[in-house]
């Protein structure tokens, strides 16, 4: 996987720290403004990273998921002081539960989109580089698992295409025929996956993977930019967590909506959070502009 954007080119520690912070904050802050900022910047970054695929993913999967989450919450959560109507089972439908559902839908989608960015940036070599020393066996298992999915998909495509050559693909024939062909492909895939797992496990074991003393080659080093990034992330982390503790992100839905008043002080926390969410984009845009300027100067 190539590091197309500047943020991916940063040291793995920077990448991991950034995503750890952003994900924790995205999961813990219920304030709608925070969630909106988090979702918008996550979407923007994923579109920057993956282009049209990210848009397709968002519209095809994330939008229905959001609607589902927003509808399901008032069906199961009946708390709240503003009763709008009564559901068929006799429990109240409240304004607070509807808003809470919308809010948590945004939260859910935001976290998922952040994770797609995480997968794009934190490649398995970075992950093993970071955790290979501390938890060798676990980081090996994680990187193998992460690698397994794309390999499986790739192999499925190969198998189904070669089956197509002999007219046994799941795309032709009657429904029964298709089912049978699909089951054949699935069975081939399961066999392949088991065999492959055993083979690669043996192979890796014989090469000393998972042992504590094993070293790994890497060309990551912390340069000036990474130091600045670490300082910036540290500042954001301390500032936002102190705001969190003092309740600057407080927002409550049940039983009644109550939130922290908006003062310049609380707004400053929001601003820092927004800047933190936009950090990779800002860095990328800055470096893109530098590159353009350099190229036009040639």
């Amino acid at each position, binding site marked *: 996987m190539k590091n197309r954007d500047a943020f991916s080119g940063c040291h793995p520690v920077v990448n991991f720290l950034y995503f750890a912070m952003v994900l924790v904050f995205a999961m813990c802050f219920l304030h709608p403004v925070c969630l909106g900022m988090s979702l918008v910047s996550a979407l923007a970054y994923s579109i920057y990273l993956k282009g049209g695929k990210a848009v397709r993913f968002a519209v095809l999967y994330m939008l229905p998921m959001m609607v589902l989450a927003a509808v399901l919450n008032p069906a199961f959560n009946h*708390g709240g002081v503003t009763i709008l109507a009564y559901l068929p089972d*006799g429990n109240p439908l409240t304004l607070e539960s509807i808003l809470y559902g919308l809010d948590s839908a945004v939260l859910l989608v935001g976290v998922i989109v952040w994770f797609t960015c995480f997968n794009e940036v934190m490649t398995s070599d970075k992950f093993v580089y970071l955790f290979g020393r501390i938890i060798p066996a676990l980081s090996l298992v994680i990187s193998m698992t992460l690698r397994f999915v794309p390999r499986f998909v790739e192999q499925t495509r190969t198998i189904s295409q070669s089956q197509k050559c002999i007219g046994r693909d799941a795309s032709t024939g009657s429904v029964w025929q298709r089912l049978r062909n699909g089951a054949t492909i699935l069975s081939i895939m399961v066999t392949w996956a088991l065999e492959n797992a055993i083979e690669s496990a043996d192979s890796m074991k014989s090469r000393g993977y998972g042992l504590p003393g094993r070293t790994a080659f890497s060309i990551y080093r912390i340069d000036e930019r990474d130091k600045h990034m670490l300082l910036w992330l540290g500042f954001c982390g301390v500032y936002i967590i102190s705001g969190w503790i003092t309740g600057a992100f407080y927002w409550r839905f*049940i*039983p009644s909506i109550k939130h922290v008043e908006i003062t310049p002080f609380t707004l400053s926390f929001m601003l820092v959070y927004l800047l933190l969410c936009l950090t990779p984009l800002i860095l990328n845009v800055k470096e893109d502009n530098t590159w353009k300027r350099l190229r036009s100067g040639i």
Partner: protein
Amino acid sequence: MWWKKNKFKVIVPVLIVAVLVVAFYFGGDHRGSGSWGTDTSPSPAAGTETVPETTASASPSASASPAASASPSPEKPVPEQSSAPAASRTPEPSAAASSSPSVSPSASPEASETPEASASAEPSASAEPSVEPSVEPSPSPSEMPPVSPSEEPEPTPPEQEEHKLTCTLSISCATILDNMELCDPDKREIIPSDGWILGPVTVEFEEGESAFDVLQRATREHGIHFEYSFSPFYNSAYVEGIANIYEFDVGELSGWMYSVNDWFPGFGLSGYAVKDGDVFKWLYTCDLGADIGGGYAVG
């Protein structure tokens, strides 16, 4: 060498014990949790024993009332509905008379005890006890003499048509006022300062309706939030929260309970067929019923 080899045999048990200790000390929000402290020990005793916790004056009558009224009403709510609904003033005695004459003496202490019980249950409300006794005890003593003849149901049916069936219902969370420190901080502001969510109101009902129907109608009419869930195992609704005060909001022993004529039924509210003149009290308990005199119903 030994340490290197058996490191995990030591570390893992120590970790497990540490986690258990932490869970034990910080696990519960029940008052006095963290140990089997001095103030928790009496309440379980009260829960099994029913009475010692409640005030001395109420205790004999409280122990008598479940024995008296428990036997007739859960077993045959239907016959009572059909025969006894009768005049609005005779629910208790007729039920007692139809089951056995020997019960009737125990019904009278029950009636006389109601003011005390209601006073002990809702100490903060000064105005309400005056309302409830006027509903209950006044009719029953007047009906006591006619109860003794067993053919009492016969004369009543004519009155039944012109009389609408009514019962009284009140919802109170006065016990929270004494346990504010246990209360969920988010819920503190919605707790009424006098503990009354719904003062005693008269609710009309149709024959064959259960306590659940009455509660749902009353809360809807008065715009009070009410959430329930249905538990098939007990074949009854379960009250999760009224007026946004939910179970477990005030400590882990808290929740809603109901009493009918100052008796706490030990079964779900859908299983109680309402009789004319019943007095329902919906009470929030912070101590499994012991603080509202209903510990025996929890078992």
